[in-house]
């Protein structure tokens, strides 16, 4: 069977689902919408439940949006082969890792069990970690030991070793994130050349974005050395490769790094003065690339993953607006948040809230 015929169902499914993506003008409309209109349009009944606190309503909305995303992921993986399914599940596993980070922080700061439990996402069986067993662990070390006994043993072992030596959450969480992205990059190597080109581009654009933002934050916000910064980065198979990162990370300021970026990133980042500017431009660049792949890629798997990435960004935008409304932020602040949308940050902010 040809590749096209092989993936006909998946491609059709992705095309149908792609109609759910927000049209470009919806972002502006979202900012103007009051809570009841948002609730009605997107079926977010939890928003109007006055009995619960703002935090609980926000949490319920976030949970329902993530559940929606995970449901769509599960629909898309049904016709896939093992490696394809593994890639999409590995991508979705970021939410399980958010849970892991919540548990780590909760155990580390000895938070109340209920507070920790309230901040865990409810996830489908295929994605979730053994949350219940981890939840019962008395401390971080015991939790990581338990995780080490399961399928996440590599990530858990490394995290435990880091924790044993450094005993602080930053290094631990950085290790978890690094493993997550390295796993994605590693998985695409198992695909045939037909699929690999599209997947390299898709995962590459995601890794380019992550590597650049992490590099800038680690170097200039957290003041880490080039060596420490480089170790935490995950090289991209596309623009920000290992060799380029080795050069870039040694440069002493933001301007020098942005000037030295490869084409077309250097043009995209021209005139950026702050990391927030870079984040905004990078987000636009990433979205453009992912949309191109969704529309043009011959690989059904790449299209499915591209759809999920875009859908995630849409849902996080919606969540940012909901959260802004619930917290009573003015429209210009909400708009600013929308421009900075990065699913990693949005969800992290949700967890903090």
């Amino acid at each position, binding site marked *: 069977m040809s590749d096209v015929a092989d993936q006909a169902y998946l491609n059709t499914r992705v095309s149908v689902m792609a109609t759910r993506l927000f049209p470009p003008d919806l972002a502006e409309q979202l900012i103007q919408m009051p809570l009841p209109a948002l609730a009605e349009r997107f079926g977010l009944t939890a928003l109007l439940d006055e009995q619960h606190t703002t935090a609980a309503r926000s949490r319920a909305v976030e949970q329902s949006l993530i559940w929606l995303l995970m449901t769509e992921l599960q629909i898309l993986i049904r016709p896939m082969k093992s490696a394809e399914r593994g890639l999409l599940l590995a991508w979705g596993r970021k939410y399980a890792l958010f849970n892991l980070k919540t548990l780590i922080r909760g155990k580390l700061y000895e938070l109340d069990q209920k507070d920790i439990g309230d901040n865990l996402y409810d996830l489908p069986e295929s994605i979730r970690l053994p949350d219940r067993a981890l939840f019962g662990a008395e401390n971080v070390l015991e939790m990581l030991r338990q995780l080490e006994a399961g399928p996440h043993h590599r990530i858990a072992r490394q995290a435990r070793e880091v924790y044993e030596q450094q005993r602080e959450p930053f*290094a631990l969480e950085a290790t978890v994130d690094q493993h997550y992205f390295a796993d994605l990059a590693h998985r695409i190597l198992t695909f045939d050349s037909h699929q690999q080109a599209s997947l390299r581009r898709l995962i590459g654009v995601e890794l380019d974005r992550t590597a650049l933002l992490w590099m800038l934050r680690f170097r200039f916000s957290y003041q880490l050395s080039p060596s420490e910064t480089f*170790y935490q980065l995950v090289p991209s198979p596309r623009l920000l490769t290992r060799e380029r990162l*080795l050069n870039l990370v040694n440069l002493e300021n933001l301007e020098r790094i942005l000037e030295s970026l490869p084409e077309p990133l250097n043009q995209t980042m021209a005139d950026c003065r702050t990391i927030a500017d870079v984040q905004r431009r990078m987000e636009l660049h990433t979205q453009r690339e992912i949309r191109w792949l969704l529309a043009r890629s011959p690989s059904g798997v790449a299209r499915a993953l591209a759809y999920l990435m875009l859908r995630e960004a849409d849902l996080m935008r919606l969540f940012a607006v909901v959260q802004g409304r619930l917290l009573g932020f003015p429209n210009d602040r909400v708009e600013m948040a929308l421009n900075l949308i990065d699913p990693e940050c949005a969800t992290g902010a949700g967890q903090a809230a």
Partner: protein
Amino acid sequence: MKHVRLLVLTENLPQASLALAETESFHPDTRPPTETQLAGLPGREYREVFIQAKSRLDKIVRHIPLDPVAEIAPIRVIDAEELIQLNDWLGPLWDETSGYEEDFRLLDDEERLVKEQQAALANFAELNIDLGMLQTKTRFLDIHIGLVPRENLRQLEGAVGLAHHILHVYMQQDDNAHVVIVGPKGDKESTLTTVLSAAGFQRLPIPQGLDRPPAELQRELAARLNGIEEQRRTLEETLVRWSAPQRPKLIEARHTLLLAEPLVELDASLRSAGHLAHLAGWVPARAVERLKQRLSKTLDQPFDLTLRDPLPEERPLVPTVASKNRLLIPFAMLVDQYGIPSYGEVDPTPLFAITFLLMFGSMFGDLGQGAVIAGAAFLARRKLGRFWLFGLLAGFASMGFGLVYGSVFGYEHVLPALWMSPLSDPLLMLSIALVWGVIFITTACLLAIYNRLVIRNWSGALFGHHGVVNLIFYLALVAGGLEVARGGGIGIHTVVLVAGSLAALAWHSWRHQDGGLGEKILVVFIETLETVIGYVSNTLSFLRVAAFSLNHVALSIAVFTLADMMGAFGHVVTVILGNLFVLVLEGGIVMIQVMRLQYYEGFSRYFSGDGHAFKPLRFRRGFS
């Protein structure tokens, strides 16, 4: 099955839970009550404490094994205060136990490190540097020797380079790479420490006196391994000594948690308002009286128990009690693979058991091979658990039909047949299989009609798949086929019945179609055609019952033909191997074919399988 609603005083909840668990007849209904005032969750805090205490006990008994629970007695109420105290006692106990666990792990890590050193020792010789320098701190050089996970190696190499150090891999073993990192002393040193830590770098202690003979160094490392083993034994003895006084208390703690568990299990169906607690569930009608008596005897405060029959809309929620007949249990397990009968639906297990044995026996009829199957099931009864009876009965069925066919280990002329060998009259065998198919499909349709009538689905019973109209069509078609086979023409009554029932089905389908005229015509035409083709092909599908009985004889003939080409010894060996081949290969295929007939031609017609099993509240016999 009855729906039970129990109102008790909140303080009586633990007693009520114990009484319900003792009767083993109460399946909790987790729906919230209709009264909005009953919004409290009286068991939530109790549950949280229980979960933590149980988790702690489970972890402790991994290191301090306890004897299995023989009996849960005496039965007494565990109040929240007692549970909290138990949890508070288990907390520090787990802290101490986990200390031992960590000590064992440290010994494991140390042992692994020594083994890595043993492996690395030979490789130190390959290093093109002065080994003496590895042990002494130098003024200008910063040297690190150790292990790093292979997956981190490349990234670490880059990071080390940025700190003006070089990384040299001198050995790779399993998931680890042995590396030497060398660079100038200075500011970068502290940076490198952080990077090494993030990369999971494990420092490898360099044995003293590297210039000594390798055998001597190996002896030293072996002695260290022995030392670790000795430490492990000592630690195990210490743990046993330390845990001895804890053991009776831990057994008591397990007993307490087993008694507390029923209330925790009820948590999802518990609601309260003030001092009043509400719980609901399903109880088999025959167990209601016993439940009432038990509650009256146990509860010292007034309570209210109301009973009612399940409402029609509650039917999907009502649990189904599984068959308790010992002989039927293995067949019920196979039925469960398809689904659990929903409430009111005919339990297909008895019919499945009878038809399975009939079909398996007739397709694989051989006295000797059947005896082997039955014998193997009997011998492996411990491993097979409750499933061994399935093998035994399948073997007996095969033996019974072996007597009917006069077949023993493929020999067709040793044993006089009670009836005849299948190959004596293949056409008769095929005809019997077809008649069997008609009976099977008709029975399945009748059960489908009955199941719909029970739930008052009149339209489904009449026009639905395998409903009354379908059955009329099928039987008329069979009658027509029979008339044609006898050499007569199809009678006018038959034609009217076939055409009339098809027209009724088409009309019913037409009424339920949306869409344009062309689409409706197309769909109705295809559905009607599918009905005709489906019944014909499904009936013909039963020809396999005869085909496999013929196939069994044919395979045996093939085995004997091969055996006859050998000498005396070769003959015996070929017959034995041939019988084994037939047993494993054909036995397996026949099993699959019978299951296919049961699931596809039977269950798909009349069995929804969307029920859920009756799981009463009961005491467990121990924790995992």
